């Protein structure tokens, strides 16, 4: 089956764990798909989920949110807040009709370079299967979102 679709994926990551983990992927020279663009935040707690909506509105096909493992947050509890908000946000997104397979939430520590490559690759593959994101654009056209 031919599939030339290259998804656009935005990754929102924290500076202390996942950004450093992705740095380790680099220093370990582990290869992964080019589709992802990383935006650095101090903490997953800073990641306002309106940003994810913005990304979809702008035509992103998928989004990765990743930070420190529970208990490992550089700021004690930012990742817990992010996780709690995520539960609510996820329900809202589902309610709006966005395919939640387009959003990956994960924990990648500074020591998990290989895990980062793995997450990017599986996300890219999954979203390639799903095809381009249309839902949000469709909704905004109808004036729902």
């Amino acid at each position: 089956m031919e599939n030339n679709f290259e998804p656009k994926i935005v990754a929102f990551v924290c500076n202390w764990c996942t950004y450093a983990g992705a740095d380790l992927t680099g220093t370990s020279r582990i290869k992964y798909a080019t589709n992802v663009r990383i935006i650095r935040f101090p903490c997953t707690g800073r990641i306002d989920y309106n940003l994810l909506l913005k990304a979809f509105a702008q035509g992103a096909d998928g989004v990765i949110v990743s930070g420190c493992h529970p208990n490992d947050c550089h700021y004690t509890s930012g990742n817990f807040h992010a996780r709690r908000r995520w539960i609510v946000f996820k329900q809202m997104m589902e309610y709006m009709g966005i395919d939640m397979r387009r959003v990956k939430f994960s924990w990648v520590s500074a020591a998990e370079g290989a895990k980062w490559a793995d997450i990017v690759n599986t996300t890219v593959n999954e979203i390639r299967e799903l095809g381009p994101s249309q839902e949000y654009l469709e909704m905004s056209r109808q004036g729902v979102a």
Partner: protein
Amino acid sequence: MSRIGVFICHCGENISATVDCEKVAKTLASMPGVAHSVDYKYMCSDPGQSLIRSAIKEKKLTGVVVAACSPRMHEPTFRKACAEARLNPFLCEMANLREHCSWVHAKGDATTDKAIDLVSMLVEKVKRNKPLFPIKVPVTKTALVIGGGIAGIQAALDIANAGQKVVLVEREPSIGGHMSQLSETFPTLDCSQCILTPRMVEVAQNPNITLYTYAEVESLSGFIGNFTARIRKKAKSVDEKLCTGCGECATACPIKKIPSEFNTGLGMRGAIYVPFPQAVPNKPVIDRSRCTYFKSGKCKFCASKCPAQAIRFDQQDEIIEIPIGSVVVTTGFNIKETSFFPEYGYGKYKDVVTGLQFERLLSASGPTLGEVKRPSDGTVPKKIVFVACTGSRDPAKGIEYCSKICCMYTAKHAMLYKHKVHDGDAYVFYMDIRAAGKGYDEFFRRAIEEDHVNYIRGRISRIYERNGKLIVRGADTLLGAQQVEIEADMVVLATAAVANDGAESLAQKLHVSYDAHHFFAEAHPKLRPVETNTAGIFLAGACQSPKDIPETVSQASAAASKVIGLFSNAELTREPIIAVVNRTAPPLFSTCVGCFMCQSACPYHAIEQEEIKTREGKLIKMVAKVNPGLCQGCGTCVAFCRSKSIDLQGYSNEQVYAEVMELLS
């Protein structure tokens, strides 16, 4: 109008091998607001930095994007360069073209396109950067050293001798750590206690050092220069001021059969005990989980025999709070537990011992007074097999790393055994000999050449007992993997060195990173080996990875010098990456509606309530206000704020939305 300068680094060939740097620079040059765009072989080099400096001046740049390696590596370098050209350093951002692009993708258009995206994203961000000014904070000139092994002792002494105050916390009743358990040390074979105990005494006598033994860190809050440590002083059940350390209580204690931790279970201690004769402080504690009085309410033999009346059964744990400026973590290592090696019969056969147990058998202060005797029957073993790499470098066991110290101490063990039992046979099974260090290779050669230790390159498959002998089955890979079977009297396992118990929870209390094996993570493996990613917290010794005494001591001194350097400042400057609540003109004063959601989200209690009043003192509204001294800049409050009245400097909403918009444009 923005005038942004873009500087694309080739990093030698690290970036340019897969990214077309010239094309990136050219594409960026035509981006709106970009006044200058060039590529260069080494941006971080001095000529590279002066390229940036002169461009700032000549082109009157209002912002700079350096596209090179990770900002975690060189952001300070380039911000400094900007500052030298009188551009506010916070108007400089880095795009990560190396770790996040060139190193992880193959050469091709997709990689270059990604690089262009990453740089333009940062250009859009930097257009919205605002000049920020570092925050000045005072420094508490007291260091907290956690762990009283040789690393902690060395660090504490170095800091104290530089005239600064130190609080040394050790969870055991005495300082000394693993080094106090060792017999002799490689490669000089000098007695471990002889070189260590004077240092221990020095710690006790140094007026700048406050020593808390039998104590643990409960929590650490605050930030560099301004931490607060909460320390739990576990109840020793002995009044230290009255106790003279005479030892009558230990003699009186009717319980004698508790396996001594210091003697690795090969010797016994009482319920009230001093771990070893040279302990510092040389004062006993009561092990409440073992003491008859604490279990049944009767006994008090020790109290009746104490000439100083120092026993305190009603003593409670005490929690003290100490202001701290900097922390050195020196919590050391442990060795892998017994259930890990069922095939080697450890735990099943008494004469299969660990390297640390063998140290105690060799030690003049040990349970056998330095005579090598079998734990099972007390006879002198005539044939000993030493097994290096027990668990280490074994991915099937989940420990891929080398424990580093085993090759050398195994050579030492075999040598000392031969010195004590002249007609004995010593065999060492090894994978490789790693003897890199001053005098190390010569030392292990001596074991083979002068002491005739038999080195067999190969691994052991199984150890089992037959007719009172330990059958060691292995392979000699230098003889074509020929099977070897040795009937030994005793086996010594060089078990893997692992992170100390509780390392993970301590890391979480201190907010420092740790690796998959729970060893603490250094900020940079080469250039910042004793720092953690948390400013003001340093590492030394085996808590970071297995290491030997010389390396531990040098790292401890390095960490101490970092602390002393920190304390040489009257005040510190902190990055101004903090949250701020907006203020607007009256009658609004602020868009903050005073819901104070942010207050409950803030992990640092940095958000206060401010009253806005009229001149007459009438309250107009309550708004949130961030205390810049406490805010650490996580931004959790920003994501929580419903009216978007609070924002994070350096990662403002305007900036991050611009990044998302640019990426997907």
